[in-house]
């Protein structure tokens, strides 16, 4: 590993340890690192399966207005209730049947996909933004700031995450935006720890000392040299995190604290219909399976990405 320290930081930044590859695949090393990563992702069956599921889901979510036969109003109200055609089994007209208020289940499902992806992406972005800031500050400043920030993170981690999310939602109120906030807040410590660990790992490297000696400012060192090293683990944690964020949000929706009716959201749809398990099983199965597939997709992608991006796992 001795050559790592002398390697130009730009090259090493995104993928630590990439220099090891030179011996095995010299051509690969000459390509830009992200292209190399992409190539390896494409070889990973796990990651591709995950990507496929997520891509499909994303396409469905984007094309929801085209796929659905019924649409909500701008304020989310579904005026297509039809009590005379409630709980219909799947048919040519309603591919997934109709729900307990006679609305087309397929239309509700695809609009709910938008909701879930939105919740996942927004809450994880929020968590990464705040977590990165806190982790970087803690690792870079050290001392009392580090102590204060990280002990607070430890306290947050000491709570079961769903309990903490529940407490936050009870505090700030129900609703979609608050759920994104709550789910985002509970995952901040994960990202803060990842970033702090990366910062601590890099901050005393010789190239950092060298650029400091050359007069680089603290912020330049942080942004240019240190944080890029945290990118790979952040991407992995983030894609795994979206899965658990969707699950947590669905859990809150199921408990009646998430998205509020009449919004279409999978967790909410599950809680509305859970008593129909025996009389109208499809009403429970479709949202349940959708949540499962989505979380599976993000988990597969996350695992695949880790295999690709973590040098210690490479080559296994």
């Amino acid at each position, binding site marked *: 590993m001795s050559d790592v320290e002398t390697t130009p930081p730009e090259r090493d930044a995104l993928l630590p340890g990439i220099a090891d590859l030179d011996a095995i695949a010299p051509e690969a090393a000459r390509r830009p690192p992200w292209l190399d990563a992409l190539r390896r992702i494409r070889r990973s069956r796990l990651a591709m399966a995950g990507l496929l599921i997520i891509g499909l889901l994303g396409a469905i979510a984007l094309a929801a207005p085209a796929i659905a036969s019924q649409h909500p*109003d701008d*304020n989310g*109200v*579904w*005026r*297509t*209730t039809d*009590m*005379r055609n*409630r709980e219909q089994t799947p048919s040519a007209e309603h591919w997934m049947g109709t729900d*307990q*208020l006679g609305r087309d289940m397929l239309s509700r499902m695809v609009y709910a996909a938008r909701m879930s992806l939105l919740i996942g992406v927004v809450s994880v972005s929020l968590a990464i933004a705040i977590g990165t800031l806190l982790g970087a500050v803690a690792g870079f400043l050290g001392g009392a700031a580090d102590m204060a920030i990280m002990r607070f993170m430890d306290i947050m981690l000491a709570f079961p995450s*769903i309990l903490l999310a529940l407490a936050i939602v009870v505090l700030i109120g129900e609703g979609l935006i608050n759920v994104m906030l709550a789910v985002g807040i509970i995952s901040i410590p994960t990202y803060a720890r990842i970033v702090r660990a990366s910062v601590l790992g890099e901050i005393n490297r010789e190239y950092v000392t060298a650029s400091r000696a050359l007069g680089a400012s603290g912020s330049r060192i942080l942004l240019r040299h240190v944080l890029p090293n945290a990118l790979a683990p952040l991407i992995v944690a983030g894609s795994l995190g979206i899965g658990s964020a969707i699950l947590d949000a*669905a*859990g809150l929706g*199921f*408990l*009646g604290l998430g998205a*509020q*009716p*009449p919004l279409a959201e999978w*967790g909410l749809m*599950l*809680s*509305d219909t*859970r*008593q129909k*398990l*025996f*009389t109208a*099983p*499809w009403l*429970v*199965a479709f*949202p*349940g*399976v959708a*949540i*499962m597939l989505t979380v599976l997709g993000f988990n597969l992608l996350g695992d695949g990405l880790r295999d690709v991006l973590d040098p210690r796992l490479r080559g296994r």
Partner: protein
Amino acid sequence: MTRISRAASRLALSVAALGLFAACSPEPTDAPVPPAQMETGSIEEEPEDTGDKDRLVFGHPADAAKLDPADVTDGESLLVTWHIYEGLTRYVRGSTEVEEALATSWDASEDGLEWTFTLRDGVTFHDGTAFDADAVVWNFNRWFDAEHPQHFGDWDFSYWEYMFQGYAGDVDDDENPKSFFVSAEAVDSSTVKLTLNRASAPLLQNLAMGNFGFSSPAAVEAAGSAYGTPGGSIIAAGTGPYMVEEWRKDEQVTLLRYDDYWGDAPATERIEFRVIPDGTSRYLALANGELDGMNQVNPEDIEQADSNDDVQIVMEPANNVGYFGFNQASEPWDNIDCRLAVAHAIDKEGVLGLYAGDAEAATQMMPPGLWGYNDSIEDYPYDLDQAQTYLDACLETSTMPDEVVFYVPPVQRFYFPKPKELGELIQASLAGLGINTAIRSPEWGTVWLPDVREGKHDVFLLGWGGDNGDPDNFLCQFFCGGDASFNGDGEGNGLSPDPDLEALLKEAAALSDQDERMAKYEEANQMIHELVPSVPLVHRSPPLLFRSNVNGYVASPIQTVLTSVTKE
């Protein structure tokens, strides 16, 4: 119940994905007994009940809190005490009208302030002491006087306060006594005189309530504060057809036929009220023959029971109403055309789709089983064209806000087993008319109810379950301006939605002639129908289940009494 079930349903979420697999067996079978069944502890202790005609086992979800009816408010306690205690009057079986019980006749003075009751002869309490005028006076004093040595209680005798409006010495802001009750005196050993400070037409109805059954003074004084609990030296002593034989807390209360009962002896020697908290376990116990009857049936289990030949479903007449209300203090709901538009836009038959066949569409703000119900009222038809016409007329003079604040209960109520779905359904109907509503379901006890009482809503869903079988208990409760849910002054104080209606209801409540009162309430119901202060939606009937060999139960809107029941 929602809190606990929500917590429990966390687990269900993780299982939910498995719904796909569970769905492969669409029909759950009755036969296997789930582990929960074992918790009742009855399997190893007792054989099945089949063939034992002298023992009726009735399953209910929670044990009686106390067998001292004056101090309880919960239905599960009253279920048991109805069999043990009697008051001066009682409800005619199967109805909310009252008849003689421990009083054989009564007479009211012209001004309705003095009531003289003649007591039944030859009645004894379960502890052997005689029932006489002194016992009646003692009981009234115990209820009324918070300083009475035997006026102790976990629930503070709250139904006395509620129905008689206060305790001895309570005064309102103007220093007038809060309660209309003044005193009870023994004229002779079989005559009691009640004195009131203002006429109260529902008095006889109130006296028939299970809470106002008489306890033996000697028994209460002997047992002290343990009276009515399993630890008391005497658990309970009333004059009713059954007395307490044994009480194993949270397991069962066993009642034994009282041989010296003054009336017709009940057919069954013993009634056991067995506690099985989980609804489905309770149903399975019934399906297995371990129970002869049960209450509080899950909607899912009603469908099961319907297809089980060994089980019969008895629908008790509804004693409640679920309604959609308008706050006339907020524009445009002071305009009757807007209210009529909504009345024509709500599909009540569709609403019934949210019930398991145990509800009926409501046309009035009180249930059909109650006297004073007006049979000639025809409901507003579900007609969107007509609704639109009314709405257009309304909007010529009134303005509809961009967002109508719509309060929907966050918790199940008996009359609204699915409040969230109902809210969504009505929201969709109103959206069809172009009325945008924003559903609000904040925390029930601390936010929702206070908000609605203070009139912070535009429209709302709520309901009411009756107490004493008197129309006043429904209609005046809603429309006499007690709170600001239907109309208010904007500062949280309630106003009646219509002064003429309020006057009519107050007049009806002050009459003492039953037939005159009935006519007034029929008139009031017609008036409410024309004024549309609310859209009555449903009356829901509580179902009971019995084994098919159980006969003679008389369904009642107001009490579950098993004394007439026989087993084949």
